[in-house]
């Protein structure tokens, strides 16, 4: 027989008075104040909107409790090794850099004044919308896709969508979005084909996405397609500001700009044929439908009992699918958008009924008599114990749905991956030359929460590197402890690094890179990398002579003029 517990039989319960002796809220408050103060890790100040402060506070996150102490220890270590002449070891410099970044907000726009203004796009919460935005971007928002921060579905009124896209290094720099990605203990950087930031407000309050709902994002970017017809695939990541890392979400479907028809593949380019076959996969195997969440009556609207499943009222053809979706015990509540009607009509005798599902919550119920019809927009609602039962059934259905969804995602991903492999193999077999062609491509992916999403591919750090001995501008100003930004000529990524002594800069000698930082007076200091730096002594490092550009940075255009003067 086991002895896993110390079982106390009929032990006396303490009295209320005994317990109250231990209560001391003031001591708790004091302990809270004296405890190591957690810092704001990621304050996403994405849009300048009337609710900016609230959006920021909503995103408050705790950083690792020991970050402050680690930073102090690391700086002390740095001071010790500084006196020895050589650079600190790469591990020591990395510890200093990690401690530095741990104290920074994870999403850290370097210039608050340059943040873009938010222009809300109004969407009717009950109806959803398909938004066609600039540059061809499309957002497909389903019906009743939002919920309040209390988990209540928003079924009426407008929701303000705030949306922006980021496509190049300047965009990423302005947004302050980190582009490094740690996976299985290895650091990568993300080469982006397009990044989005999306959030929503309802009556001025931030809202979330309803469980089971997704917003489809379609955005364009240019992709380098090899002459053999192959191209890089892209994945979708969501920025987790709590874990301070990107989280892999899935692969994006890529559709090249030229439309393709699966039934007429002949004569199309390999890219368009693949595109068409992918579309055919999704048509043949559509995404599973989310279950309907049970809803309680609101008590103000007219509600009535009508069991369409018991056969007492004949049903018109075409009602079967809608009937099958009904939950047991549901009664009907008239929707506010239904046309006014005489409630006494509900007591009339009707010959038959027709039911049609209009949305996830709304049905059209037509009661048909000898010479008249009554058409109502209604929704099923559930009361009392039936609601509990329905809620339990819903919970189970969600689990089944999630399992089906996971299976569907795996199934379709496998099929699409197999298609891509086949086309890539065919392209390789042709052995065509390596010249590339830039093609416009539409990336399609679904998101299930608001925040920052990135359609990209992780790349390992470049093999060549040098270490920073010191950074100094033409005026003799040094930058020993701040964030620097490194971007290559493609501008698909940006790498944030610490300017401290001994920091390592990874770069490809064949490419041109720009390294820059903000000066204390709001200007940009920059330098172009030189291939020979890769041969520098790793113990001595490279003294970077940066050029501070004497131009005030007031907006994004100013940044572009400084970083891309041509």
């Amino acid at each position: 027989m086991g002895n896993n517990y110390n079982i106390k039989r009929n032990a006396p319960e303490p009295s209320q008075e005994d317990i109250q002796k231990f209560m001391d809220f003031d001591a708790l408050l004091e302990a809270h104040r004296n405890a190591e103060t957690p810092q704001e890790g990621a304050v996403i100040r994405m849009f300048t909107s009337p609710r900016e402060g609230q959006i920021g506070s909503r995103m408050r996150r705790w950083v690792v409790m020991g970050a402050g102490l680690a930073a102090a220890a690391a700086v002390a270590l740095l001071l010790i090794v500084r006196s020895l002449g050589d650079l600190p070891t790469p591990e020591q410099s990395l510890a200093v850099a990690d401690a530095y970044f741990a104290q920074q907000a994870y999403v850290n726009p370097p210039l608050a004044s340059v943040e873009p203004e938010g222009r809300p796009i109004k969407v009717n919460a009950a109806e959803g919308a398909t938004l066609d935005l600039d540059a061809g971007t499309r957002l497909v928002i389903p019906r009743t896709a939002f919920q309040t921060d209390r988990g209540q579905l928003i079924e009426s009124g407008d929701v303000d969508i705030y949306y922006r896209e980021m496509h190049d290094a300047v965009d990423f720099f302005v947004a302050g979005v980190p582009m490094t990605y740690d996976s299985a203990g290895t650091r990568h950087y993300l080469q982006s084909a397009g990044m989005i930031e999306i959030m929503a407000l309802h009556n001025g309050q931030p809202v979330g996405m309803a469980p089971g709902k997704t917003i489809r994002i379609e955005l364009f970017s240019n992709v380098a397609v090899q002459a053999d017809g192959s191209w890089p695939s892209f994945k979708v990541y969501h920025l987790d500001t709590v874990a301070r890392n990107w989280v892999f979400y899935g692969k994006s479907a890529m559709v090249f700009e030229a439309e393709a028809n699966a039934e007429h593949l002949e004569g199309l380019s390999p890219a368009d044929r693949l595109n068409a076959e992918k579309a055919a996969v999704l048509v043949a195997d559509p995404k599973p439908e989310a279950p309907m969440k049970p809803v309680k009556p609101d008590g103000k609207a007219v509600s009535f009992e009508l069991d369409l499943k018991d056969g007492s009222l004949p049903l018109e053809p075409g009602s079967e699918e809608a009937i099958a979706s009904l939950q047991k015990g549901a009664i009907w509540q008239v929707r506010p958008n239904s046309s006014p009607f005489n409630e006494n009509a509900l007591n009339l005798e009707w010959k038959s009924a027709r039911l049609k599902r209009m949305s996830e919550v709304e049905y059209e119920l037509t009661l048909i008599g000898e010479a008249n019809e009554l058409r109502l927009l209604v929704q099923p609602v559930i009361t009392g114990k039936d609601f509990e039962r329905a809620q339990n059934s819903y919970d189970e259905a969600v689990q089944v749905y999630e399992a089906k969804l996971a299976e569907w995602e795996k199934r379709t991903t496998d099929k699409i991956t197999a298609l891509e492999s086949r086309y890539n193999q065919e392209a390789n077999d042709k052995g065509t030359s390596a010249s590339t062609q830039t093609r416009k491509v539409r990336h399609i992916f679904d998101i299930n929460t608001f925040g920052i999403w990135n359609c990209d591919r992780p790349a390992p750090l470049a093999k060549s590197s040098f270490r920073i001995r010191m950074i100094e501008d033409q005026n003799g100003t040094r930058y020993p402890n701040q964030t620097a930004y490194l971007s290559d000529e493609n501008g698909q990524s940006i790498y944030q690094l610490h300017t401290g002594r001994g920091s390592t800069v990874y770069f490809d000698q064949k490419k041109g890179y720009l390294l820059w930082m903000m000066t204390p007076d709001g200007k940009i200091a920059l330098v172009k990398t030189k291939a020979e730096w890769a041969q520098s002594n790793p113990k001595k490092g490279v003294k970077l002579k940066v050029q501070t550009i004497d131009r005030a940075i007031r907006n994004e255009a100013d940044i572009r003029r400084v970083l891309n003067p041509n």
Partner: protein
Amino acid sequence: MFANLQISRTLAKNEWMDRSAKTVSESALHQEWEEIRAAQGNPALFRPLYERYYESVFRLIHRRTSDMELSGDLCSQVFLKALQKINTYTFQGVPFSAWLFRIAVNEVSQHFRQQQNNRVVSVNDLHLHDLIDDIGTDPEEMELLRRKMLGALENLKGDDMQLIEMRFFEQRSFKEIADILGMTENNAKVKVHRILERLKRRLSGG
């Protein structure tokens, strides 16, 4: 055949989540959410929540420690952690108490893990009787059954004991258990049912 339609305007009144005394109404949840938001902005405004739940958290801990001083210490830790983490709390339709109880259960588990001691399970004979009744074993001399049951309980895994303890010895609803342990109500019911089946087999010598 004609349908029998009946208008009803009064179906949606009294929308309580659960009529048991240990759960709260939606309006109370709403009011509490406002208090939590206030405390998120100013820790001093955490006081009403502290005063409302101190005793129930203390009792939960005491039943698992049987030590007043230790319960006081752990209770302080629970509320300190709650205050430190309150900015991460988001409303998901679950009472704030469930969140506090979850922290408390974890705090107790962590304490006994560190001390490498067996944790206390407080069992009242009356509740033990309920448990035996629920299992529905053959009638036997009650004291013998109680001792057998205590022996069977000794073998339960930690998670299973939490469920039996909350359901029978603390008389919590499945909804509340589900909220505290972060599972669905249905899952809690199924798990308890399975544990009872196992206990029954053990009691009958199977």
